[in-house]
């Protein structure tokens, strides 16, 4: 391109913007197409993302009517979190759902923690996002591990025990075989989140 240009007289046709007219035209066309896609499918995607949390709420807090869930933004020390206050069909409060996330064995683990109305006991736990070791650490999403959290007290730390069944009265969780760190991470995330936000859930 440059060779030809230098020998010829400069005309408006040699301007690189004019040379690139096709690219500019395509950029405009493509952006128009894409924004149409966004307008049409954006709401569906948003609904999907909402659903990912809301479909778990009845599992976390029993007897909840999803239609009556209220989102509440909590603020403390410059941190923000969106908590879900749950009600049943008659609009009686049933509990809270609190998102929690923190460092797992491999990558960040995202959890949802269900609490009773006074935020004193855990009513459930689900893992919504994890990349733990397949076959070992990723068993944290299995019910057999998660159900141990149901009924544990929220006002004191949950501890991990190895080699024997934990006792719910002492707030103990049995670690997964071969995935002690993943199990410990889940407990730490729950403990930290509750420590920070439990007082705010009133």
């Amino acid at each position, binding site marked *: *391109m440059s060779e030809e240009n230098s020998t010829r007289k400069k005309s408006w046709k040699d301007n690189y913007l004019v*040379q*690139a007219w*096709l*690219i500019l035209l*395509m*950029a405009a066309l*493509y952006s128009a*197409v*894409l924004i149409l*896609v*966004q307008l049409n*499918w954006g709401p*569906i*995607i948003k609904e*999907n*993302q909402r*659903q*990912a949390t809301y479909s778990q709420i009845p599992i976390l807090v029993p007897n909840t009517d999803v239609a009556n869930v209220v989102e509440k933004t909590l603020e403390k020390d410059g941190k923000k979190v969106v908590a879900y206050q749950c009600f049943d069909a008659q609009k009686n409060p049933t509990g809270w759902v609190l998102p929690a996330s923190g460092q797992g064995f491999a990558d960040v683990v995202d959890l949802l923690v269900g609490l009773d109305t006074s935020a004193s006991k855990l009513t459930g736990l689900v893992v919504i996002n994890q990349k733990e*070791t*397949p*076959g*070992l650490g990723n068993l944290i999403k299995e019910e057999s591990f998660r159900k141990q959290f149901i009924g544990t007290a929220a006002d004191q730390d949950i501890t991990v025990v190895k080699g024997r069944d934990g006792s719910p009265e002492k707030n103990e969780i049995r670690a997964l075989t071969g995935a002690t760190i993943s199990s410990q991470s889940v407990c730490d995330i729950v403990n930290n989140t509750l420590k920070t936000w439990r007082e705010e859930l009133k």
Partner: protein
Amino acid sequence: MNDQPTALERFWRGIIPENPTYRQVLGMCPTLAVTTNVQGAITMAAATTFVLVCANIMVSLLRKIIKPHLRILVFTLTIATFVTIADYFLQAFMPEMSAQLGPYIPLIIVNCIIISRCEVCASKQSLVPAIADGFGQGLGFLLGLCSIAVVRELLGSGTLMGYTVLSENFWVNCGIMILPPGAFLTLGCLMAFFNWIGSKKQEN
């Protein structure tokens, strides 16, 4: 352009003789990353095929007016647009699959297969061979991905397409197969296997 292959030839070539994974060794990132199970592999291949065919169509239609020194930019823009559409489609209608494939769907943009097909075939041939080429290469990519995914899913989790094949009673899952090293191991061994077959064929 008489020496260019016909549509049927293009289609067939993509599947075995110019297989993107084993013959051209292109598009290694998704080949390694999304082959932990067969469904993921199929979805990935389908998304790639969609982008490949659409990009081939666009490039083939525009081939007369694209300036040679700007061609790569035109290809990349086209590919990026169709990848965005594919990504949003998956997010909207197959959210679980989208979450599983994660960033590897947008990474189709930089998959060498597509840009290389635009360059080798679509920018030189008319619409029909370009479309056939897109489907052929897509099918070849599907075969490549599935061959790895079948091995990894079977040995790693004892299932195929999510159905248990190797019962836990007599089979211990090799967890390593679904982990990153398993991907390299499987691809390396399969690559050597196909090389071996190729060299045997040549000898005959």
